[in-house]
């Protein structure tokens, strides 16, 4: 097709699945119906933050009675059991 502005030849490019006609003369761009919306959508996807990693299922924390301590906050890459009472480990060793 010819550029509606300067009548030079227009060439078709495929950019991320969207067909774009660009003029070899004035570098103007022609978009078909719906192509502007497609580009806007692509732009939004590229700027959005990546989805947060899903938290590990809470079901992995062992069962405990109604009076049990609250499960500790999960630390990624660490044990799910907390070590906040590290100094109390002597209780594992004496009665």
């Amino acid at each position, binding site marked *: 097709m010819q550029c509606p502005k300067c009548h030079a030849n227009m060439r078709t490019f495929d950019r991320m699945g969207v067909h774009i006609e660009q003029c070899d003369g004035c570098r103007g761009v022609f978009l078909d119906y719906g192509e502007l919306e497609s580009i806007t959508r692509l732009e939004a996807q590229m700027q959005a933050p990546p989805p947060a990693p899903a938290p590990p299922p809470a079901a992995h*924390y*062992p*069962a*405990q*009675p*109604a*009076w*049990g*301590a*609250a*499960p*500790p906050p999960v630390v990624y890459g660490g*044990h*799910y*059991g*907390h*070590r*906040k*009472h590290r*100094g*109390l*480990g*002597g*209780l*594992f*060793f*004496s*009665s």
Partner: protein
Amino acid sequence: MSDLVAAMAALTGSDAEPEVLGTHDDVVVVRVGDVVAKAHALGTDAGPLTERMRIAGSLPGVMLPPIAPSPVRVGDRLVTVWPHGTPVSQADPDAAPWEESAALLARLHATPCDGPVSTAPDRILRAVHELPPDAPGADVVLRAFATLPPLDLPGRALIHGDYHLGQLVHRGEWLLIDVDDLGVGAPAWDLARPAALFAAGILPGDLWTRFLDAYLSAGGTGLPGEPWAVLDVPARAFVVQMAARAIVMRTEAQDALVEACDRIVSTHEHMAHG
């Protein structure tokens, strides 16, 4: 005390330098070379102690067998003599033999039992009796104790009666030691102390899971069905016992344990009253 230690050392037949390994309440443990002598608590009966030693000697691979088959009286004490074994290192609880100890308990619980009654529940009652009611935090501990039903739990097996990681030594293999509370009772008593420490937020969940899973996969008979249905009462009892002792001994554990007593009270008192 030094007379007692010297007399205990003489019983071992070793001329190595005696080393006092520990004194806990009025129990004294002395190592002499490759042998350990234990002076049991005042008031210990020779008959049941001898029977417990016989049971320990009949469980190779599960319990450390005594060197001499019966206790010797030294003054007002009964003294028993045992091989020395290496205790579990307290430096790294993650590396402790949680699985091995659970498997040993599973084997112990599967042993046909006939012997003295285990004194496990007495340990709970003793700690509560020794708690001054006006000590800070004691009211919450006593209210948590009041939520408990009578401590004659269902289940009948040969149980250790005072299990914790300090009751293991390595001597070619991991073995259980300390026969003082060994006898016939509910196997849940041997599992409820780690359960209590887990529910109190002190024992990390992954270590509790290692212990529990190892007990179940070794065929442990003490937890038919849902584990906490069986563990709830004895674990509450152990929280009360440990909290009472922590208050009396003024250890840093008392805050976490009294908080656990507080949660026991708030989840159980309303049930008791209607």
